């Protein structure tokens, strides 16, 4: 019976499976293979195997780019973590119509092309941009602040751009809380702060952690924003990957960069699931 079912379902699954095996699994596997071959002037030397491309990542030049990428991602995710609860609690308490509008506003950066946001931030942050003009006209600064073409600009633009990845799971978790829990704790004389710490936080922290993991991954692999707002001298890993793959055409090294980024992504998702599960277990106790 089971065999019969597997046989009959095959024609329905086959078209998509073929596309995904051919243009998803195969390319990723090919990249893993390429990363283990030496690069030669004639192209990839598929006859030989090496870990050289991975060792190169430890080179101080590239290591520094990895460190900068991590630094920017950690800062953005930390600020997101601080802002997530105030925003999510506020939104979850709004009247339904306003709540829907607020959520739409927070999702909008996800719907609007990254390049449009990068252009907007450029117009706001550059030395003769809106922010500097406003500050100067208000007499707060004499000379324009350096708000972009550095890490500051990248951080400012990434925060709202990836905020919804942390907000949405947290907001969903907050809405799922039984309001009676808060009332019960409150009627027993618990202060609002203690209700948050003892009831709300343990029950919703797993959702926030899951969201922050995605937020961090998005920060770590962002390309257009660091390229246009960071620029030369402030390279992150994705910009290095562009340079290596499309300018230097050193594909084995470029493949190694892709493999490392993917490995970090999968590891973070794994760890995030573990931490979230532990937090959920602690909350249940």
């Amino acid at each position: 019976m089971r065999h019969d079912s597997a046989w009959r379902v095959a024609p329905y699954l086959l078209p998509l499976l073929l596309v995904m095996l051919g243009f998803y699994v195969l390319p990723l596997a090919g990249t893993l293979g390429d990363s283990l071959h030496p690069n030669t002037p004639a192209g990839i030397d598929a006859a030989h195997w090496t870990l050289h491309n991975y060792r190169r990542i430890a080179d101080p030049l590239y290591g520094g780019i990895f460190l900068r990428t991590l630094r920017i991602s950690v800062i953005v995710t930390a600020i997101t973590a601080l802002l997530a609860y105030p925003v999510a609690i506020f939104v979850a308490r709004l009247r339904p119509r306003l709540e829907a509008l607020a959520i739409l506003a927070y999702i909008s950066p996800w719907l609007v092309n990254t390049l449009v946001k990068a252009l907007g931030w450029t117009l706001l942050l550059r030395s003769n941009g809106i922010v500097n003009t406003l500050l100067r006209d208000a007499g707060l600064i004499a000379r324009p602040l350096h708000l972009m073409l550095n890490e500051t600009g990248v951080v400012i633009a990434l925060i709202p751009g990836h905020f919804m990845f942390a907000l949405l799971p947290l907001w969903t978790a907050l809405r799922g809380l039984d309001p009676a829990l808060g009332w019960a704790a409150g009627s027993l004389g618990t202060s609002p702060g203690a209700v948050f710490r003892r009831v709300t936080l343990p029950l919703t922290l797993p959702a926030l952690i899951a969201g922050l993991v995605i937020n961090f991954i998005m920060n770590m692999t962002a390309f257009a924003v660091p390229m246009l707002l960071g620029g030369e001298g402030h390279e992150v890993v994705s910009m290095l990957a562009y340079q290596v793959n499309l300018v230097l055409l050193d594909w084995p090294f470029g493949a190694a960069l892709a493999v490392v980024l993917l490995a970090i992504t999968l590891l973070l998702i794994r760890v995030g699931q573990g931490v979230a599960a532990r937090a959920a277990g602690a909350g249940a106790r």
Partner: protein
Amino acid sequence: MILAVNLFMLVLVLAPIVMVVWMSFTPAAYFALPTAHLSLRWYREALSYPGFVDAFGLSVELATLAAVAAVGSGFLAAYGLARFRPRGAALLAGFFASPLLVPSVVFGIAMLQFVNRLGLYNNLAGLVLAHVVVVVPYAIRTLGVTLRTVPEELEWAAMVLGSSRLRTLLRVTLPLSARGLVTAFLFCFLMSFSEVTMTIFMAGPSLQTLPVRLYTYMSDRIDPTVAAVSSLVVLISLALAIVVDLLGGFRLDRGQAGRAGA
């Protein structure tokens, strides 16, 4: 305090988008916030620049092809999983959704090297298939929910009355899923139309989609023309998003949206 944090965040979220649209109406030859006079000068400029017009045509073609292929193959797969419930169905569903977890940069590098090996570099077919992979999770998710709302009893009734499974699929299931199919198509179209990073990495010089063309132009210089093009992109994206939302697309997806872009 909590209100102040929210207002601050809303400004951060909306300011860049509002700024681009506002600036696009400037009558000046440089970026100056228009106040007294609004002008469509830069829209005329953008529409007479063949680079952008051609890129827009390519983007629409690419998004249409990718969305049709993703919805077609995604509907069949979602139908197979929902109606036959084969062993490992959960695993397969996870596999179909997994492109969401692969960073665009990583997939872009993998596709760049892959299409070159196949001799498909700078070839529309390669780009379309890559976009299918990127958007298919949205199709599978939307159509999976849709198929759960189509009463299976109606399909059984048709089959008991002698209709073959294929005929039942075409005459009963497909029409009852029409709304979900339209939603999935628009959702996939929107996601393909907005895709930047993966396309920058893998698309060859003659496959410049609108976002890629915008990116190339912006890396070189920034003038009000890009603001006008960007505003049109915002208009199209938001219009598509509103239709998807009205059709219930995001409600199906909202719980998962946090896991989306990665």
